[in-house]
Protein backbone atom coordinates (compact mmCIF):
# COMPACT_ATOMS: atom_id res chain seq x y z
CA UNK A 1 0.00 0.00 0.00
CA UNK A 2 2.96 2.30 0.50
CA UNK A 3 2.97 4.75 -2.37
CA UNK A 4 6.27 6.38 -1.54
CA UNK A 5 8.17 7.15 -4.72
CA UNK A 6 11.67 8.42 -5.29
CA UNK A 7 11.82 12.08 -4.29
CA UNK A 8 11.70 14.56 -7.16
CA UNK A 9 12.46 17.74 -5.28
CA UNK A 10 14.27 20.19 -7.47
CA UNK A 11 14.80 23.10 -5.14
CA UNK A 12 16.42 21.50 -2.15
CA UNK A 13 19.88 22.60 -1.12
CA UNK A 14 20.62 19.81 1.34
CA UNK A 15 19.43 16.20 1.09
CA UNK A 16 16.00 16.22 2.66
CA UNK A 17 15.05 13.49 5.03
CA UNK A 18 12.39 13.05 7.64
CA UNK A 19 13.86 15.04 10.42
CA UNK A 20 12.83 15.71 13.94
CA UNK A 21 14.13 18.98 15.22
CA UNK A 22 15.03 18.58 18.87
CA UNK A 23 16.08 22.06 19.83
CA UNK A 24 14.58 25.17 18.28
CA UNK A 25 17.56 27.27 19.43
CA UNK A 26 19.98 25.15 17.43
CA UNK A 27 17.52 25.25 14.61
CA UNK A 28 17.70 28.96 14.00
CA UNK A 29 21.49 28.74 14.21
CA UNK A 30 21.47 26.00 11.60
CA UNK A 31 19.23 28.16 9.45
CA UNK A 32 21.97 30.75 9.22
CA UNK A 33 24.58 28.15 8.27
CA UNK A 34 22.50 26.41 5.68
CA UNK A 35 21.85 29.41 3.49
CA UNK A 36 25.22 30.75 2.39
CA UNK A 37 24.42 30.60 -1.33
CA UNK A 38 21.14 32.42 -0.83
CA UNK A 39 22.81 35.14 1.23
CA UNK A 40 24.48 36.54 -1.89
CA UNK A 41 21.15 37.27 -3.53
CA UNK A 42 19.26 40.39 -2.51
CA UNK A 43 17.20 39.12 0.39
CA UNK A 44 13.68 40.27 0.96
CA UNK A 45 11.46 40.03 3.97
CA UNK A 46 9.81 36.60 4.15
CA UNK A 47 6.06 36.61 3.86
CA UNK A 48 4.39 34.58 6.58
CA UNK A 49 0.67 33.97 6.19
CA UNK A 50 -1.10 32.79 9.31
CA UNK A 51 -4.38 31.08 8.56
CA UNK A 52 -6.79 31.18 11.48
CA UNK A 53 -10.01 29.23 10.98
CA UNK A 54 -12.64 30.57 13.36
CA UNK A 55 -16.11 29.26 14.07
CA UNK A 56 -17.80 31.16 16.89
CA UNK A 57 -14.47 32.18 18.41
CA UNK A 58 -15.22 35.87 18.95
CA UNK A 59 -14.08 35.58 22.57
CA UNK A 60 -10.66 34.25 21.65
CA UNK A 61 -9.92 35.99 18.35
CA UNK A 62 -8.71 39.29 19.72
CA UNK A 63 -6.36 37.50 22.09
CA UNK A 64 -4.90 35.49 19.21
CA UNK A 65 -4.44 38.64 17.12
CA UNK A 66 -2.82 40.32 20.11
CA UNK A 67 -0.28 37.52 20.34
CA UNK A 68 0.50 37.82 16.66
CA UNK A 69 1.15 41.51 17.25
CA UNK A 70 3.74 40.47 19.84
CA UNK A 71 5.28 38.12 17.30
CA UNK A 72 5.53 41.01 14.84
CA UNK A 73 7.48 42.96 17.42
CA UNK A 74 9.73 39.97 18.09
CA UNK A 75 10.40 39.40 14.38
CA UNK A 76 10.33 42.83 12.75
CA UNK A 77 11.91 41.50 9.52
CA UNK A 78 9.00 39.21 8.81
CA UNK A 79 5.90 40.32 6.94
CA UNK A 80 3.14 38.63 8.87
CA UNK A 81 -0.39 38.52 7.51
CA UNK A 82 -3.06 36.94 9.70
CA UNK A 83 -5.77 35.51 7.44
CA UNK A 84 -8.86 34.88 9.50
CA UNK A 85 -11.46 32.63 7.96
CA UNK A 86 -14.77 33.25 9.67
CA UNK A 87 -16.45 29.95 8.90
CA UNK A 88 -20.06 31.08 8.99
CA UNK A 89 -19.98 32.01 12.67
CA UNK A 90 -23.30 32.77 14.32
CA UNK A 91 -21.80 34.98 17.02
CA UNK A 92 -20.52 38.52 16.51
CA UNK A 93 -17.23 37.37 14.92
CA UNK A 94 -17.99 39.21 11.70
CA UNK A 95 -18.68 42.56 13.35
CA UNK A 96 -15.66 42.10 15.60
CA UNK A 97 -13.37 41.37 12.67
CA UNK A 98 -14.73 44.29 10.67
CA UNK A 99 -13.88 46.52 13.61
CA UNK A 100 -10.55 45.16 14.88
CA UNK A 101 -9.23 43.39 11.77
CA UNK A 102 -7.75 46.54 10.15
CA UNK A 103 -6.16 47.55 13.46
CA UNK A 104 -4.16 44.32 13.50
CA UNK A 105 -3.58 44.44 9.73
CA UNK A 106 -5.44 41.18 9.47
CA UNK A 107 -7.18 39.92 6.38
CA UNK A 108 -10.57 38.45 7.09
CA UNK A 109 -12.70 36.28 4.86
CA UNK A 110 -16.29 35.70 5.89
CA UNK A 111 -17.78 32.50 4.54
CA UNK A 112 -21.55 32.82 4.28
CA UNK A 113 -22.09 29.20 5.38
CA UNK A 114 -20.34 26.91 7.81
CA UNK A 115 -18.15 24.62 5.72
CA UNK A 116 -16.14 22.92 8.44
CA UNK A 117 -12.50 23.29 9.36
CA UNK A 118 -11.06 21.62 6.25
CA UNK A 119 -12.67 23.92 3.71
CA UNK A 120 -12.13 26.97 5.92
CA UNK A 121 -8.40 26.29 6.16
CA UNK A 122 -8.27 25.63 2.44
CA UNK A 123 -9.83 29.05 1.81
CA UNK A 124 -7.02 30.52 3.89
CA UNK A 125 -4.45 28.64 1.80
CA UNK A 126 -6.01 30.05 -1.36
CA UNK A 127 -5.61 33.56 0.04
CA UNK A 128 -2.03 32.79 1.08
CA UNK A 129 -1.20 31.62 -2.44
CA UNK A 130 -2.69 34.80 -3.90
CA UNK A 131 -0.58 36.85 -1.51
CA UNK A 132 2.53 34.88 -2.47
CA UNK A 133 3.35 33.68 1.04
CA UNK A 134 6.69 31.95 1.61
CA UNK A 135 5.36 30.11 4.63
CA UNK A 136 1.74 29.47 5.53
CA UNK A 137 0.94 28.57 9.07
CA UNK A 138 -2.27 27.14 10.39
CA UNK A 139 -3.27 28.36 13.82
CA UNK A 140 -6.46 27.50 15.68
CA UNK A 141 -8.71 30.42 16.55
CA UNK A 142 -9.36 29.11 20.06
CA UNK A 143 -6.04 30.27 21.45
CA UNK A 144 -4.66 26.77 22.12
CA UNK A 145 -1.65 27.35 19.92
CA UNK A 146 0.89 29.75 21.36
CA UNK A 147 1.84 32.36 18.77
CA UNK A 148 5.31 32.78 20.23
CA UNK A 149 6.17 29.22 19.16
CA UNK A 150 5.54 30.19 15.53
CA UNK A 151 9.21 30.89 14.66
CA UNK A 152 10.09 27.30 15.60
CA UNK A 153 7.72 26.10 12.91
CA UNK A 154 8.55 28.72 10.34
CA UNK A 155 12.36 28.66 10.45
CA UNK A 156 12.89 25.08 9.11
CA UNK A 157 10.76 26.03 6.10
CA UNK A 158 12.57 29.30 5.43
CA UNK A 159 15.81 27.32 5.62
CA UNK A 160 14.26 24.94 3.06
CA UNK A 161 14.83 21.98 5.34
CA UNK A 162 11.19 20.90 5.33
CA UNK A 163 7.94 21.52 3.48
CA UNK A 164 5.66 20.76 6.38
CA UNK A 165 6.49 21.40 10.03
CA UNK A 166 4.14 20.08 12.67
CA UNK A 167 3.96 21.54 16.16
CA UNK A 168 3.93 18.43 18.30
CA UNK A 169 2.80 17.88 21.87
CA UNK A 170 4.30 14.42 22.10
CA UNK A 171 7.94 14.67 21.15
CA UNK A 172 10.75 15.40 23.56
CA UNK A 173 10.81 18.98 24.73
CA UNK A 174 7.06 19.50 24.44
CA UNK A 175 4.79 19.89 27.39
CA UNK A 176 2.04 22.07 28.68
CA UNK A 177 -1.43 20.86 27.86
CA UNK A 178 -1.19 17.09 27.93
CA UNK A 179 -4.38 15.85 26.33
CA UNK A 180 -6.59 13.00 27.55
CA UNK A 181 -5.25 9.43 27.33
CA UNK A 182 -8.01 8.57 24.87
CA UNK A 183 -6.85 11.26 22.49
CA UNK A 184 -3.21 10.29 22.98
CA UNK A 185 -4.07 6.70 22.12
CA UNK A 186 -5.96 7.77 19.02
CA UNK A 187 -3.12 10.04 17.92
CA UNK A 188 -0.68 7.14 18.33
CA UNK A 189 -2.97 4.88 16.30
CA UNK A 190 -3.07 7.40 13.42
CA UNK A 191 0.68 7.82 13.67
CA UNK A 192 1.16 4.07 13.14
CA UNK A 193 -1.44 4.07 10.37
CA UNK A 194 0.36 6.84 8.47
CA UNK A 195 3.68 5.03 8.93
CA UNK A 196 2.21 1.87 7.42
CA UNK A 197 0.26 3.58 4.62
CA UNK A 198 2.72 6.19 3.36
CA UNK A 199 5.86 5.63 5.41
CA UNK A 200 6.03 8.92 7.25
CA UNK A 201 6.91 9.56 10.89
CA UNK A 202 4.55 12.00 12.55
CA UNK A 203 3.88 11.60 16.25
CA UNK A 204 1.25 14.27 16.85
CA UNK A 205 -1.07 13.42 13.99
CA UNK A 206 -4.04 15.38 15.33
CA UNK A 207 -2.14 18.63 15.79
CA UNK A 208 -3.68 21.53 13.87
CA UNK A 209 -0.61 23.69 14.48
CA UNK A 210 1.33 23.30 11.25
CA UNK A 211 3.41 25.33 8.84
CA UNK A 212 3.68 24.74 5.10
CA UNK A 213 6.11 25.86 2.42
CA UNK A 214 4.92 27.82 -0.64
CA UNK A 215 4.81 24.63 -2.72
CA UNK A 216 2.90 22.67 -0.11
CA UNK A 217 0.46 25.57 0.33
CA UNK A 218 -0.08 25.76 -3.41
CA UNK A 219 -0.86 22.05 -3.45
CA UNK A 220 -3.18 22.18 -0.43
CA UNK A 221 -4.99 25.23 -1.83
CA UNK A 222 -6.03 22.98 -4.69
CA UNK A 223 -6.53 19.77 -2.72
CA UNK A 224 -7.37 19.65 0.95
CA UNK A 225 -9.47 16.95 2.59
CA UNK A 226 -12.71 18.35 4.05
CA UNK A 227 -13.63 15.79 6.58
CA UNK A 228 -10.69 15.04 8.86
CA UNK A 229 -7.96 17.30 7.52
CA UNK A 230 -5.50 16.93 10.40
CA UNK A 231 -4.75 13.29 9.73
CA UNK A 232 -5.83 12.94 6.12
CA UNK A 233 -3.74 15.79 4.70
CA UNK A 234 -0.51 13.87 5.37
CA UNK A 235 -1.38 11.20 2.83
CA UNK A 236 -1.46 13.38 -0.33
CA UNK A 237 1.51 15.38 1.02
CA UNK A 238 3.54 12.22 1.51
CA UNK A 239 2.48 10.91 -1.89
CA UNK A 240 4.00 14.04 -3.42
CA UNK A 241 7.18 13.63 -1.34
CA UNK A 242 6.79 16.79 0.67
CA UNK A 243 9.22 16.63 3.56
CA UNK A 244 7.48 16.49 6.91
CA UNK A 245 9.16 17.25 10.21
CA UNK A 246 8.03 17.83 13.76
CA UNK A 247 9.05 20.32 16.40
CA UNK A 248 8.02 20.28 20.07
CA UNK A 249 5.54 22.94 21.19
CA UNK A 250 3.78 23.69 24.44
CA UNK A 251 0.06 23.97 23.90
CA UNK A 252 -2.40 25.57 26.24
CA UNK A 253 -5.79 24.34 27.35
CA UNK A 254 -8.75 26.01 25.70
CA UNK A 255 -9.61 29.27 27.37
CA UNK A 256 -13.29 29.23 26.37
CA UNK A 257 -15.66 26.49 25.28
CA UNK A 258 -15.16 22.74 25.45
CA UNK A 259 -14.05 20.00 23.11
CA UNK A 260 -16.94 17.83 21.98
CA UNK A 261 -15.07 14.52 22.15
CA UNK A 262 -16.54 11.67 24.19
CA UNK A 263 -15.18 8.07 24.29
CA UNK A 264 -17.86 6.60 22.01
CA UNK A 265 -17.64 9.50 19.61
CA UNK A 266 -13.89 9.30 19.49
CA UNK A 267 -14.00 5.59 18.64
CA UNK A 268 -16.46 6.37 15.87
CA UNK A 269 -14.21 9.23 14.78
CA UNK A 270 -11.18 6.94 14.69
CA UNK A 271 -12.90 4.42 12.46
CA UNK A 272 -14.12 7.12 10.07
CA UNK A 273 -10.72 8.77 9.87
CA UNK A 274 -8.96 5.43 9.37
CA UNK A 275 -11.24 4.58 6.44
CA UNK A 276 -10.89 8.07 4.92
CA UNK A 277 -7.11 7.93 5.31
CA UNK A 278 -6.90 4.55 3.63
CA UNK A 279 -9.02 5.84 0.74
CA UNK A 280 -6.65 8.77 0.34
CA UNK A 281 -3.84 6.42 -0.64
CA UNK A 282 -5.71 5.32 -3.78
CA UNK A 283 -7.50 8.54 -4.65
CA UNK A 284 -6.38 10.58 -7.67
CA UNK A 285 -4.76 13.82 -6.52
CA UNK A 286 -3.75 16.95 -8.44
CA UNK A 287 -0.13 17.34 -9.49
CA UNK A 288 2.48 19.06 -7.38
CA UNK A 289 3.62 22.40 -8.74
CA UNK A 290 6.88 24.13 -8.06
CA UNK A 291 6.63 27.81 -7.21
CA UNK A 292 3.62 28.25 -9.41
CA UNK A 293 5.01 26.12 -12.24
CA UNK A 294 3.88 22.67 -13.26
CA UNK A 295 5.93 19.76 -11.93
CA UNK A 296 6.48 18.49 -15.50
CA UNK A 297 8.19 21.76 -16.41
CA UNK A 298 10.44 21.37 -13.39
CA UNK A 299 11.29 17.79 -14.35
CA UNK A 300 12.11 18.80 -17.91
CA UNK A 301 14.73 21.27 -16.75
CA UNK A 302 18.36 20.11 -17.18
Amino acid sequence: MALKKQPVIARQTTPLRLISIKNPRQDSAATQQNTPSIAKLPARAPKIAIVIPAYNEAKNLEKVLDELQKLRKARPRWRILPIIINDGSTDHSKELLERVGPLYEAYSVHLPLNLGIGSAVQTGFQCAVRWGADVTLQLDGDGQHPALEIPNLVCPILAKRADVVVGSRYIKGAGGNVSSSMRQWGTYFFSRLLKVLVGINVRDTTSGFRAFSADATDFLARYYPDDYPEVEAYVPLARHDFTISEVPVKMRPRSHGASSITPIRSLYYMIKVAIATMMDTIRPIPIRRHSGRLQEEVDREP
Partner: protein
Amino acid sequence: MSPDSMLGILSWKLPDYRFRIEFWAVLGCIVLFTALMELIRRGRLKERYSLLWFLTAGALLLFTARRDWLENLAQLVGVYYPPTALFLLLVFFMLLILMHFSMEISRLLADKHTLVQNLGILEARVRALERTGSSPDLEVKNESGRDNSVDT
Protein backbone atom coordinates in the same frame (compact mmCIF):
# COMPACT_ATOMS: atom_id res chain seq x y z
CA MET B 1 -61.58 -15.47 8.02
CA SER B 2 -59.69 -15.69 4.75
CA PRO B 3 -58.07 -12.67 3.12
CA ASP B 4 -60.43 -13.12 0.18
CA SER B 5 -63.54 -12.74 2.29
CA MET B 6 -61.92 -9.83 4.11
CA LEU B 7 -61.60 -8.05 0.81
CA GLY B 8 -65.34 -8.57 0.47
CA ILE B 9 -66.88 -6.48 -2.23
CA LEU B 10 -63.46 -5.57 -3.65
CA SER B 11 -62.45 -9.18 -4.37
CA TRP B 12 -64.87 -9.73 -7.22
CA LYS B 13 -63.11 -7.07 -9.27
CA LEU B 14 -59.64 -8.57 -8.78
CA PRO B 15 -58.16 -11.05 -11.27
CA ASP B 16 -57.43 -14.67 -10.47
CA TYR B 17 -55.31 -15.13 -7.34
CA ARG B 18 -52.29 -16.43 -9.32
CA PHE B 19 -52.05 -13.23 -11.33
CA ARG B 20 -52.82 -10.82 -8.57
CA ILE B 21 -49.14 -9.85 -8.03
CA GLU B 22 -48.88 -9.03 -11.72
CA PHE B 23 -52.03 -6.96 -11.49
CA TRP B 24 -50.64 -4.82 -8.66
CA ALA B 25 -47.25 -4.57 -10.30
CA VAL B 26 -48.73 -3.30 -13.56
CA LEU B 27 -50.94 -0.87 -11.67
CA GLY B 28 -47.93 0.36 -9.70
CA CYS B 29 -45.90 0.81 -12.87
CA ILE B 30 -48.66 2.81 -14.53
CA VAL B 31 -49.00 5.07 -11.48
CA LEU B 32 -45.21 5.52 -11.37
CA PHE B 33 -45.04 6.35 -15.08
CA THR B 34 -47.87 8.86 -14.82
CA ALA B 35 -46.36 10.52 -11.77
CA LEU B 36 -42.94 10.74 -13.46
CA MET B 37 -44.36 12.19 -16.65
CA GLU B 38 -46.36 14.75 -14.70
CA LEU B 39 -43.39 15.78 -12.55
CA ILE B 40 -41.18 16.22 -15.60
CA ARG B 41 -43.91 18.12 -17.46
CA ARG B 42 -44.23 20.58 -14.58
CA GLY B 43 -40.47 20.93 -14.31
CA ARG B 44 -40.41 19.51 -10.78
CA LEU B 45 -38.07 16.70 -11.81
CA LYS B 46 -35.08 17.05 -14.12
CA GLU B 47 -34.93 14.57 -16.99
CA ARG B 48 -31.43 13.52 -16.00
CA TYR B 49 -32.66 12.39 -12.59
CA SER B 50 -35.70 10.61 -13.99
CA LEU B 51 -33.76 8.16 -16.15
CA LEU B 52 -33.18 5.64 -13.37
CA TRP B 53 -36.81 5.91 -12.31
CA PHE B 54 -38.00 5.18 -15.84
CA LEU B 55 -35.63 2.25 -16.04
CA THR B 56 -37.06 0.90 -12.78
CA ALA B 57 -40.64 1.24 -13.95
CA GLY B 58 -39.77 -0.18 -17.39
CA ALA B 59 -37.97 -3.22 -16.01
CA LEU B 60 -40.78 -3.91 -13.58
CA LEU B 61 -43.38 -3.65 -16.32
CA LEU B 62 -41.40 -5.81 -18.68
CA PHE B 63 -40.92 -8.65 -16.24
CA THR B 64 -44.54 -8.47 -15.15
CA ALA B 65 -45.85 -8.62 -18.70
CA ARG B 66 -43.51 -11.43 -19.72
CA ARG B 67 -44.10 -14.11 -17.10
CA ASP B 68 -41.77 -16.51 -18.93
CA TRP B 69 -38.86 -14.03 -18.67
CA LEU B 70 -39.56 -13.62 -14.98
CA GLU B 71 -39.56 -17.39 -14.53
CA ASN B 72 -36.21 -17.60 -16.36
CA LEU B 73 -34.83 -14.84 -14.20
CA ALA B 74 -36.06 -16.58 -11.05
CA GLN B 75 -34.43 -19.80 -12.18
CA LEU B 76 -31.19 -17.98 -12.96
CA VAL B 77 -30.90 -16.45 -9.51
CA GLY B 78 -32.33 -19.49 -7.70
CA VAL B 79 -35.64 -18.08 -6.54
CA TYR B 80 -38.40 -20.71 -6.21
CA TYR B 81 -41.38 -18.44 -6.40
CA PRO B 82 -41.04 -16.23 -9.53
CA PRO B 83 -42.90 -13.13 -8.27
CA THR B 84 -40.27 -12.86 -5.52
CA ALA B 85 -37.74 -12.19 -8.28
CA LEU B 86 -39.79 -9.09 -9.04
CA PHE B 87 -39.05 -7.78 -5.56
CA LEU B 88 -35.40 -8.62 -6.00
CA LEU B 89 -35.40 -6.57 -9.18
CA LEU B 90 -37.13 -3.71 -7.40
CA VAL B 91 -34.62 -3.77 -4.54
CA PHE B 92 -31.77 -3.74 -7.03
CA PHE B 93 -33.11 -0.67 -8.79
CA MET B 94 -33.86 1.05 -5.49
CA LEU B 95 -30.22 0.53 -4.49
CA LEU B 96 -29.10 2.04 -7.78
CA ILE B 97 -31.31 5.07 -7.26
CA LEU B 98 -30.12 5.54 -3.68
CA MET B 99 -26.50 5.30 -4.71
CA HIS B 100 -27.15 7.83 -7.42
CA PHE B 101 -28.62 10.18 -4.82
CA SER B 102 -25.63 9.80 -2.54
CA MET B 103 -23.32 10.58 -5.43
CA GLU B 104 -25.32 13.65 -6.35
CA ILE B 105 -25.38 14.88 -2.74
CA SER B 106 -21.61 14.51 -2.51
CA ARG B 107 -21.13 16.38 -5.76
CA LEU B 108 -23.47 19.18 -4.68
CA LEU B 109 -21.66 19.44 -1.34
CA ALA B 110 -18.28 19.76 -3.07
CA ASP B 111 -19.73 22.37 -5.43
CA LYS B 112 -21.20 24.25 -2.50
CA HIS B 113 -17.84 24.32 -0.74
CA THR B 114 -16.09 25.72 -3.82
CA LEU B 115 -18.80 28.33 -4.30
CA VAL B 116 -18.81 29.46 -0.69
CA GLN B 117 -15.01 29.66 -0.63
CA ASN B 118 -14.91 31.76 -3.78
CA LEU B 119 -17.75 33.93 -2.54
CA GLY B 120 -15.92 34.57 0.73
CA ILE B 121 -12.67 35.44 -1.05
CA LEU B 122 -14.41 37.69 -3.57
CA GLU B 123 -16.32 39.46 -0.84
CA ALA B 124 -13.08 40.09 1.05
CA ARG B 125 -11.48 41.50 -2.09
CA VAL B 126 -14.46 43.76 -2.78
CA ARG B 127 -14.31 45.03 0.78
CA ALA B 128 -10.59 45.75 0.41
CA LEU B 129 -11.24 47.55 -2.86
CA GLU B 130 -13.96 49.65 -1.33
CA ARG B 131 -11.74 50.58 1.58
CA THR B 132 -8.61 51.50 -0.34
CA GLY B 133 -10.26 52.80 -3.47
CA SER B 134 -7.78 51.19 -5.82
CA SER B 135 -5.68 48.13 -4.99
CA PRO B 136 -6.74 45.16 -2.91
CA ASP B 137 -4.55 44.45 0.09
CA LEU B 138 -3.58 41.01 -1.20
CA GLU B 139 -1.32 41.78 -4.13
CA VAL B 140 -1.26 39.22 -6.91
CA LYS B 141 1.93 37.24 -7.16
CA ASN B 142 3.91 38.11 -10.30
CA GLU B 143 3.72 35.37 -12.88
CA SER B 144 7.36 35.55 -13.99
CA GLY B 145 8.39 33.55 -10.94
CA ARG B 146 9.03 34.74 -7.44
CA ASP B 147 12.27 35.74 -5.92
CA ASN B 148 12.89 32.73 -3.75
CA SER B 149 15.57 34.25 -1.61
CA VAL B 150 14.25 35.29 1.72
CA ASP B 151 15.87 36.81 4.68
CA THR B 152 15.59 34.67 7.77
